[in-house]
């Protein structure tokens, strides 16, 4: 009997050890999972860097790059200083009351997201906390993505410091408020309207795209973009192949971006001990993402090719394909994702032309690709995904996805982008910090801003695209 009891005790101890080991493995898996999304998302920035520099004329190529690199650099510390705090502080709205999940509100944010006092234990190396840093890192890279989206639209005439201020407002505040409201289990857009935006079509892309529109209205077009009669001139960048490769790199990085939208088991905010979830606690698999992202990329490229035959718009179509389906990548059927992405590819160029015909000089089509198509994606999910519970649970206990809810979400995302973009850029304009002086714009911003040459062997004989087509 005693022998049997001892054997049983040994067996129990073995099982307990195995179970504990499983938990540790899960924690390390979650940590590694998020950690790997960070370099993947940095590929997005390599892509935006190449894309913007390629889309710039020779005289502006390096200054466009400098601007993009600085946006990334300033986004990280500002997101550390207050962006992370905003995300946890205000899901229920202002004044930042705690939500039912117990992971929101100013008090909660004060306890985990400030880099000083007791809270600082979660904002630095901590042997008992494997997750905060990698989760913060993934979110900081989302923030940097928003800044890069705006960055491309404003190339070749914006002041560096003014741009960085705008990037910080967008990346460490505006989109973070959108994420708190629509991308958090306590977010009021989710709990009251059933908004579902798994891959951030609205809360990242549309917010950034319409923030850029607000800035562009105050910034004005590049010299030579529009003729006296209002017709537009095409200002070609100096290196289309670089731009196209940059766009392809952004697609690569988006696999990391969307991977980071998944909550794996094994971390403090995990929904389940044994399966992946969306940020709303609804189930998801990485296979869902593989099916739907690939089909969306293909649909967007094919739709854009049909009307444009232009590699720039084809690769923009790939992005539009992903963005148009991002809200529901967890639940779309792949062929349906393809059809929606195809439709996004079809409408992309006409939407960009429409904007240009209204005097907006969006140098890379960012407002259309990210803003317009972002909202299109949010609303498409309302059409196709109505009836799905928005949160973990059952309809009735939790809200469901609906067309009205998605339209409300789209309207809020539009306003969270456009209003701060317009207001802050207007203030910068009044302070003389928005647009570079005319002489410097004509001479080329690299001469003013960068003590280096993009293509030094070309020297003074470099073929320069005229600032004004009539010159």
């Amino acid at each position, binding site marked *: 009997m005693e022998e049997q009891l001892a054997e049983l005790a040994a067996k129990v101890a073995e099982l307990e050890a195995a179970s504990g080991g499983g938990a540790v493995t899960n924690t390390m898996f979650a940590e590694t999972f998020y950690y790997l999304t960070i370099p993947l998302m940095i590929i997005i920035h390599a892509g935006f860097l190449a894309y913007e520099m390629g889309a710039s004329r020779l005289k502006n190529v390096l200054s466009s790059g400098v601007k993009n690199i600085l946006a990334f650099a300033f986004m990280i510390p500002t997101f550390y200083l207050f962006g992370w705090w905003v995300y946890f502080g205000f899901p229920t709205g202002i004044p930042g009351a705690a939500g039912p999940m117990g992971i929101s509100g100013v008090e909660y944010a004060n306890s985990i997201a400030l880099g000083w006092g007791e809270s600082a234990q979660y904002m630095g190396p901590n042997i008992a906390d494997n997750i905060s840093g990698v989760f913060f890192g993934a979110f900081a890279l989302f923030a940097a993505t928003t800044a890069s989206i705006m960055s491309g639209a404003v190339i070749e005439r914006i002041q560096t410091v003014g741009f960085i201020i705008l990037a910080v407002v967008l990346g460490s505040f505006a989109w973070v408020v959108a994420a708190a409201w629509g991308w958090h289990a306590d977010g009021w857009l989710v709990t009251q309207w059933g908004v579902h935006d798994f891959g951030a079509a609205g809360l990242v892309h549309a917010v950034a795209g319409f923030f850029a529109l607000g800035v562009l209205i105050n910034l004005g077009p590049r010299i030579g973009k529009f003729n006296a009669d209002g017709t537009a001139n095409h200002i070609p960048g100096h290196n289309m192949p670089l731009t196209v490769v940059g766009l392809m790199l952004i697609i690569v990085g988006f696999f990391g971006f969307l991977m980071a939208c998944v909550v794996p088991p094994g971390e403090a905010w995990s929904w389940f001990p044994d399966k992946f979830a969306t940020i709303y606690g*609804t*189930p998801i698999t990485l296979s869902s993402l593989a099916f739907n992202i690939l089909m969306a990329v293909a649909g967007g490229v094919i739709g854009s090719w049909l009307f444009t035959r232009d590699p720039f718009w084809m690769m923009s179509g790939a992005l539009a394909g992903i963005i148009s389906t991002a809200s529901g990548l967890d639940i779309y*059927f792949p062929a349906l994702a*393809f059809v929606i992405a*195809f439709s996004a590819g079809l409408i992309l160029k006409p939407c960009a032309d429409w904007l240009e015909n209204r005097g907006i000089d969006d140098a890379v089509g960012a407002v259309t690709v990210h803003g317009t198509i972002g909202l299109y994606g949010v609303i498409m999910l309302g059409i196709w995904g109505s*009836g799905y*519970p928005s949160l973990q649970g059952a309809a009735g206990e939790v809200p469901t996805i609906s067309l009205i809810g998605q339209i409300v979400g789209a309207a809020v995302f539009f306003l969270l982008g456009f209003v701060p973009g317009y207001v802050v850029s207007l203030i910068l304009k009044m302070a003389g910090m928005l647009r570079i002086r005319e002489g410097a714009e004509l001479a080329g911003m690299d001469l003013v801003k960068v003590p280096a040459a993009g293509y030094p062997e070309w020297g003074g004989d470099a073929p320069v695209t005229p600032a004004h087509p009539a010159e």
Partner: protein
Amino acid sequence: MFPYDEASWSAVDGAMFMGWGGSLPGIATLIAAVICVAVLVIGQRSETAKAKAFDK
């Protein structure tokens, strides 16, 4: 469009995409296939027409 009788995630034990168990996936697949073929046909026609403009 929730593919289970009860709109609850606890009822989901397999496929969870829109229209599962109905005709939507088949229709969407057919449309996707038609799009691929139609775009190729249109692309071939327009490219041929443009290429002819360069005939001597």
